[in-house]
C-alpha cells in the first residue's frame, strides 16, 4: 500500500520519535510512505485563531501537493489532520471561492487512527505481533482534534470513539474503561497558561490512574508532550504513541532512542518486553 505522508512540524521536531516509530511500523506492514516534497506548516491552531485566510491557504498548499500525487494522504498529527480536513472541506464545497479551478479528488486525508483501526490492517497487525503486551493496562486518550468537530473530521463516534481501544486489544494489551478519553488537555495554551494545562492534565492523569492504567496511549503529538510534561510530580504515567506500542509488540524490542524521548519514565514497557523475553528464554 502506498500513501502520501504529511508529517507536520511536530514530527520533524519535538515529536521526532513519533515519526520514527510510525515509519518502522509501516515498514512491518508493507505500507510505503511517500513524504510530500517541500511541505509547509499547516498553521496548526495559531493560524486559524488569528488569520482565517492564511490558515486555510497554508493547508491548501499541502492539499495541492497531495493532489499532484493522488494517493490517500496520511496525517499522524491530530492538529494537522483537522486543519487539512477543514481546508479539504472548504475546497470541496466551493473551490472557486479559494481561487482553485476545480477540486474533487478521489483520494482522502486520513488520520493514523482510522488507518490502524481498519479491520484489514488490524488483522495484519495482530498477525505480525511477536510479543503481545499482555497485562499492560492502558488508558486510550484521544484528545480533541482528530475527532472534533465531526463536520470537519468526519469521525463517526466522536463522543465514544474506539479506534485506539481496538488497536490496543490487537497488540494484546488491556484498554481500561475510563472517563477522560476525549477531554481537552489544553495543549494550545500550555506555553502561555501552564497553570491551566497543569490543572486539566492533573484531572486527566488522575482519572487514568483511578481506572488502574499504567500508562496512556495517544496519537496526538501535542497531547503526548503536554500530558507528560504537565502531570503532577510523582504521577509517573508515561504517554505512548499508538505506533510506538504497536511497533514494540511487532518487533519485540523497544529502542533506547525511543525510550529517551519520554519526559516520564517509560520503564513499564521495557520491563514488560524484558519479562516476555525472559519467560520465553526460560521455556526454551
Amino acid at each position, binding site marked *: 500500500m502506498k500513501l502520501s505522508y504529511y508529517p507536520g*512540524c511536530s514530527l*520533524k*521536531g*519535538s*515529536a*521526532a*520519535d513519533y515519526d520514527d516509530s510510525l515509519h518502522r511500523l509501516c515498514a512491518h506492514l508493507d505500507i510505503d510512505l511517500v513524504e510530500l516534497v*517541500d*511541505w*509547509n*506548516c499547516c*498553521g*496548526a*491552531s*495559531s*493560524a*486559524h*485563531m*488569528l*488569520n*482565517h*485566510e*492564511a490558515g486555510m*491557504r*497554508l493547508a491548501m*498548499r499541502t492539499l495541492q501537493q497531495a493532489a499532484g500525487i493522488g494517493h490517500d494522504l496520511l496525517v499522524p498529527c491530530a492538529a494537522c489532520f483537522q486543519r487539512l480536513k477543514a481546508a479539504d472541506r472548504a475546497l470541496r464545497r466551493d473551490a472557486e471561492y*479559494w*481561487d482553485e479551478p476545480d477540486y474533487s479528488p478521489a483520494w482522502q486525508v486520513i488520520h493514523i487512527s482510522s488507518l490502524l483501526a481498519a479491520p484489514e490492517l488490524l488483522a495484519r497487525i495482530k498477525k505480525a505481533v511477536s510479543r503481545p503486551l499482555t497485562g499492560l493496562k492502558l488508558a486510550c486518550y484521544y484528545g*480533541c*482534534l482528530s*475527532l*472534533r*468537530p*465531526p*463536520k470537519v473530521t468526519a469521525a463517526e463516534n*466522536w463522543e465514544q470513539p474506539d479506534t485506539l481501544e481496538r488497536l490496543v486489544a490487537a497488540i494484546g494489551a488491556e484498554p481500561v474503561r475510563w472517563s477522560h478519553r476525549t*477531554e*481537552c488537555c*489544553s*495543549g*494550545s*495554551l500550555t*506555553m*502561555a*497558561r*501552564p497553570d*491551566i494545562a497543569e490543572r*486539566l492534565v492533573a484531572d486527566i492523569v488522575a482519572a487514568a490512574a483511578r481506572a488502574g492504567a499504567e500508562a496512556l496511549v495517544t496519537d496526538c503529538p501535542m497531547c503526548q*508532550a503536554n500530558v507528560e*510534561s504537565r502531570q503532577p510530580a510523582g504521577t509517573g504515567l508515561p504517554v505512548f504513541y499508538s505506533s510506538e506500542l504497536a511497533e514494540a509488540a511487532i518487533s519485540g524490542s523497544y529502542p533506547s*532512542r525511543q525510550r*529517551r*524521548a*519520554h*519526559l516520564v519514565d517509560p520503564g513499564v514497557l521495557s520491563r514488560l518486553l524484558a519479562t516476555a523475553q525472559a519467560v520465553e528464554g526460560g521455556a526454551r
Partner: protein
Amino acid sequence: MVDKPICPTASRGKFLQKLQQREIDVQACFQCGRCSAGCPVAEYFDLSVMAVVRLAAYGEEERLLHSRTIWLCAACETCASRCPNGIEIAGLMDILRELACRKGITAAEPRVAAFHQAFLASVGRWGRVYEMGMIASYKLHSGDLTGDLPLGLRMVARGRLRMLPEPIAERSAVAEIFAGKGREYER
C-alpha cells in the same frame, strides 16, 4: 436557519454580516447551556461560552473583543460538536480573536496572543515552525523569560528540540500567503 438579529437596535451590521458569511448562525441559539457545560476551560472565562454566543447575536462586538474568554478558548471544538443547533462556536471565537487583532485591541490575555504571534512569525519566516526559535521569540515578547526553563532543558536533554531551523525551499509561497494572498476580497 438564519433569522433576523435578535436585538436589531444594538446590533452591529458589519459584524453580524461577517458571521453570516462564515455560516455561523448565532441567532439560532436558544441558550440551552450545553456549550458552557462541556467547556474544559470554562472556570477561567470572564464570559461563559453561551454568553459569548448571545452577546454575538446582540452584536455586542466590543465587549467580546475585550474579553479574556476569546483568548483562553483552547479551540477544542467540544462546544461546536455538541451544540444542538449546529452553531460553529469555535469558529466564532476565531473570528473574534482575528477581529481583535485587526482592530489593534490589546489582548486581555497578552501571553496567549504573544504565543500565537510567535508561532505564526516562525511559520512565515521558515515555512515550518522552528520550535526553538519560536519559544525564544515568545519568551522575549511575552516577558515570561524564566517560566518553564527546567522543562525546556529537559526537552533539550531528551533530544526533543532541534537546534537549527529547517526552512522549506519555496518560502515565497508561504510569504505570499502571509502577505495577504486572497485578502483582496476581505474574507
